C-alpha cells in the first residue's frame, strides 16, 4: 500500500499544529510591539517608538517565514486571529519588561517545537529552526540590554530621556 500521507506532506500533523501555534505567537508579538510603539510615541519616547516599530516588522517577518515553511512542506498554514492587545502601559520601564518577557516566551516556544522534532527525528524542521534560535539569541540580548539601561542610567531627572536615546544604539555582534 502506498504511503500517500508522507508523499503529500513532509511534516507530521503534530509539528504542523505546533508551527501554526508559533505563527500565531509571532503575529501576536508583532501586534504587541506595534502597540508598544504607539504608547512610546504618545508619551514622547521617539527612539523607543522607532525601535518597537522595527521589532514589529521583524516579528512579522518571522511569522511569514514559519508560514511559508508550512506551505512549502505541504501543510496547511493558518492565518491567525489576534485579539487582546494591550493599549496602555503603566510606565516606560514596564514596556521594556514586557518586551523581554515576550522574547523569552518566543524562545521557549521554539525550543518546545525543537523538542518535538527531536522526538520525531524531524531533522528537516530542526535545521529550519536553527535560524530562529540564532535570531532569538540576538532578540533576547537586545531586550535584556534595553531593560538594563533602566538600572545603569537610572530613571531620575533626564534618565528616561537618556535611556530612550540609547535604545536605538543597542546592537548585537557574536564576536
Amino acid at each position: 500500500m502506498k504511503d500517500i500521507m508522507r508523499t503529500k506532506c513532509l511534516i507530521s500533523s503534530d509539528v504542523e499544529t505546533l508551527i501554526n501555534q508559533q505563527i500565531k505567537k509571532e503575529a501576536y508579538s508583532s501586534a504587541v510591539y506595534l502597540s508598544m510603539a504607539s504608547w512610546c510615541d504618545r508619551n514622547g519616547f521617539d527612539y523607543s517608538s522607532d525601535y518597537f516599530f522595527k521589532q514589529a516588522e521583524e516579528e512579522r517577518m518571522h511569522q511569514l517565514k514559519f508560514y511559508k515553511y508550512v506551505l512549502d512542506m505541504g501543510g496547511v498554514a493558518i492565518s491567525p486571529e489576534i485579539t487582546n492587545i494591550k493599549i496602555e502601559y503603566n510606565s516606560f520601564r514596564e514596556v521594556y519588561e514586557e518586551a523581554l518577557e515576550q522574547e523569552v516566551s518566543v524562545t521557549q516556544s521554539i525550543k518546545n517545537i525543537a523538542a518535538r522534532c527531536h522526538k520525531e527525528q524531524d531533522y528537516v524542521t530542526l535545521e529550519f529552526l536553527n535560524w530562529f534560535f540564532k535570531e532569538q539569541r540576538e532578540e533576547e540580548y537586545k531586550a535584556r540590554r534595553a531593560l538594563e539601561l533602566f538600572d545603569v542610567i537610572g530613571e531620575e531627572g533626564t534618565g528616561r530621556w537618556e535611556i530612550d536615546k540609547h535604545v536605538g544604539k543597542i546592537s548585537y555582534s557574536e564576536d
Partner: protein
Amino acid sequence: MQDLITLPSITFSEVFSTKNGAIYQSDSENCWYIDFAGKLARFDYRNLLKLQKAVYQIDIENLLLSSDKAPDLEIIFICACDHCYVLSLIQIIAIKELLQGTFVMLELNHIIYDRLHRIVA
C-alpha cells in the same frame, strides 16, 4: 495489507475497519473510500484531513451530557467536498473510532514503507 476488492483497474486495500464501517485506500487514485453510514464516499488527501479535523472537533462529552430537547444529530459538512454526513451521536462515536484506527494504520504503513523501501539497512 490484504487486497480485498479487485476491479479491472482499481485495487482497494483495507486500511481499517470496525463493525460499523471501513476505510479503503486506492493506490491508483491516491485516495480513500469510506464505507460508512450506508454509503461509499471518496476522499482525497485534503478532504480526509478535513474530515478528521471536523470529527475530532465534536465535543462528544458535551453532547452526551446535554439535556437539550434538540435531536443529537451532527451535520458534518466539508468545504469543497462532495459528501456530507448527518450523524447521530452513536454514529459520531463510531466514525471517530474508525478514523482514529485509520490514522494509526496509515502511520504504521508509513513506518513499514520507510523500513522496506526507503531506509538503507
